[in-house]
C-alpha cells in the first residue's frame, strides 16, 4: 500500500494540477479561450488565430513540457539540447526561429496575389508607401512609452498590417515579444472593417468618396512575369535584410504568373501553406507563456498596435487626398486606406465605403493596387528597421 500511496502522490505531484503555481497560468488559459472565441465566433483571421490560441493554451498548461522558452532565450540557441529534450512545440518553433515559416507563407501569399491592379496603375505604390506611416508613428510612441529600440521597432511593424512580416521582424529583433505582437497584428487585421471606416469618413468629404474611377487598363502576361523578377532584383539589392520575404513573395508570384508551373503554384497556395500555417500558428502561440505575456508591456503593445493601424490608415488616406487633388479629382482617396495591406480586407472596406457614398461606385480593383503595394511597402519598412536595429 506504501507503493500505491507513493504512486498516487507522485501522479498528483507530476500533474499540472499541482503544477499551477501561479494564478497567471489560469488567466492565460482564459485569454487563450477568449482568443479562440475571437477566432471562431468573430472570425478574426481564424486560420492563424485558432492555431495561436491553441498553442498559447498548450504552453500555459503547467508541466506540459511542449515548449521550453529557456531554450530560445539564449544568445546562441543550443540546437543539440532542443533535439534532445525539446517538446513538440520546440521542434515546430525551429521553423519560426530560422525564419522558414514566414518565408514559406509569403511564397503562398505570392502565389495567391494578383499584382495586376498595381501594375495597371503604378501610382498605387505611392499609396502603399504612405500607408506605412503608422509604422513610424508607432515606433516613436513605443520609444516614448519606454521600450528599448529593438522592441519598439518590432512593435512598430504591427502597423504594416502584415502578419508574416511582423513575425519575421520580431523573431529577429525581439523574439521574447513574439506572442503579443503576432496576436496584436492578426487581431487588428481582422478588425480592419471596424477600425478604418470612421477614420475614412472623418478624413474625406462626401464629394471625394463619390468619385468614380476610370477602368483599369489590362496588364499583359509579359508584364506580370517580368514584374516579380525585377522587384526581386531591385528590392533585394537595396534591402538585403528582407531578401527571404521579398524573394519568396516574388517566387510564389512567378509560379503563379509564368503559366508553366501551375502545380507548384497550387501546392504553394494550398498544401504547403496550410501545413506551415498550422505549424506557425501553434509555435507562435507557444511563445506567449504567462511569465512573459502577462505584463504591462503586452497592454502597451495592444494599445500601440491600434495606434499604428489607425495612423497607417491616416497616412494612406491623406496621400490619397493629395493624389485626388493632383489628379484633379480622378482618384478617390478612399483607395488610400487600402494601402495598409491586410489583403484583401482593406480593399473591401474601400469598396464598401465608396459604394455607401455612391451606389454605382466600384472601387475594389482600384483599391487592390495600393492593397498589394502595401505588402511590399511593409517589407521595405521592415528592411529599414532591421537595418537600424538589427
Amino acid at each position, binding site marked *: 500500500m506504501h507503493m500505491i500511496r507513493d504512486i498516487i502522490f507522485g501522479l498528483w505531484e507530476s500533474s499540472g494540477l499541482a503544477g499551477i503555481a501561479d494564478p497567471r497560468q489560469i488567466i492565460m488559459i482564459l485569454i487563450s479561450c477568449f482568443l479562440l472565441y475571437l477566432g471562431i465566433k468573430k472570425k478574426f483571421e481564424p486560420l492563424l488565430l485558432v492555431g495561436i490560441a491553441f498553442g498559447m493554451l498548450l504552453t500555459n498548461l503547467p508541466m506540459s513540457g511542449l515548449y521550453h522558452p529557456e531554450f530560445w532565450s539564449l544568445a546562441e540557441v543550443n540546437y543539440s539540447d532542443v533535439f534532445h529534450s525539446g517538446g513538440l512545440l520546440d521542434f515546430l518553433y525551429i521553423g519560426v526561429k530560422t525564419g522558414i515559416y514566414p518565408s514559406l507563407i509569403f511564397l503562398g501569399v505570392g502565389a495567391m496575389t494578383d499584382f495586376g491592379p498595381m501594375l495597371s496603375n503604378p501610382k498605387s505604390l505611392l499609396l502603399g*508607401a504612405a500607408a*506605412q506611416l503608422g509604422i513610424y508613428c508607432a*515606433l516613436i510612441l513605443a520609444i516614448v512609452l519606454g521600450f528599448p*529600440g529593438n522592441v519598439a521597432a518590432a512593435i512598430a511593424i504591427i502597423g504594416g498590417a502584415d502578419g508574416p512580416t511582423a513575425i519575421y521582424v520580431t523573431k529577429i529583433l525581439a523574439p521574447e515579444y513574439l506572442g503579443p505582437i503576432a496576436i496584436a497584428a492578426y487581431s487588428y487585421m481582422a478588425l480592419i472593417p471596424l477600425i478604418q471606416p470612421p477614420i475614412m469618413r472623418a478624413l474625406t468629404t462626401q464629394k471625394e468618396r463619390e468619385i468614380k474611377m476610370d477602368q483599369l487598363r489590362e496588364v499583359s*502576361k509579359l508584364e506580370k512575369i517580368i514584374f516579380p523578377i525585377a*522587384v526581386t532584383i531591385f528590392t533585394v539589392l537595396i534591402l538585403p535584410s528582407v531578401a527571404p520575404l521579398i524573394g519568396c513573395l516574388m517566387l510564389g508570384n512567378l509560379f503563379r*504568373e509564368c503559366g508553366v508551373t501551375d502545380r507548384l503554384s497550387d501546392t504553394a497556395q494550398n498544401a504547403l501553406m496550410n501545413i506551415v500555417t498550422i505549424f506557425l500558428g501553434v509555435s507562435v502561440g507557444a511563445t506567449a507563456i504567462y511569465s512573459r505575456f502577462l505584463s504591462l508591456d503586452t497592454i502597451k503593445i495592444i494599445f500601440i498596435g491600434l495606434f499604428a493601424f489607425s495612423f497607417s490608415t491616416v497616412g494612406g488616406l491623406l496621400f490619397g487626398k493629395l493624389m485626388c487633388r493632383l489628379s484633379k479629382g480622378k482618384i478617390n482617396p478612399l483607395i488610400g486606406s487600402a494601402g495598409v495591406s491586410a489583403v484583401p480586407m482593406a480593399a473591401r472596406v474601400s469598396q464598401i465605403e465608396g459604394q455607401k457614398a455612391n451606389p454605382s461606385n466600384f472601387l475594389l480593383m482600384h483599391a487592390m493596387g495600393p492593397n498589394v503595394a502595401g505588402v511590399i511597402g511593409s517589407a521595405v519598412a521592415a528592411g*529599414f528597421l532591421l537595418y537600424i536595429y538589427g
Partner: protein
Amino acid sequence: MVEYSIWETILLSVLGIIAVFIVLAVLMLFIKVITFVSRVAGGKEKPATPAASDKLAAYAKGSCGDVKLHNVPDKDAAMIMAIVADKLKTPLNELRFISIKMIGE
C-alpha cells in the same frame, strides 16, 4: 545597435517613411519601364485574360464558369453544367450555366 533618443527616433522615422517612399517610387518607375518594354517586346501579344484561378474563384459558389454552348445537336438533349463543389464544401444547390460546347465524337 545604438539606442536612439526620442528626438533621434523622430528624425529616424521621417527618414524611414521617406526611404519607403523612395523605394516604392523607384519601383513605380520600374513598372513603367517594364510596361513600356513589354509593350515593345511583346507588342502583338494581347493582354492577358484574368488568370484561370481568379475566374474559378469569382465563379466559386455553384456556378459553372464561362462555359460556352455550341453545336448542341438536339434541343431535347439539353446541356447542364454541374459544378461538383466538393472541394469548396458548398451545397450543390446553386447552378448557373451560360454555354456548353459539345466537341464532335
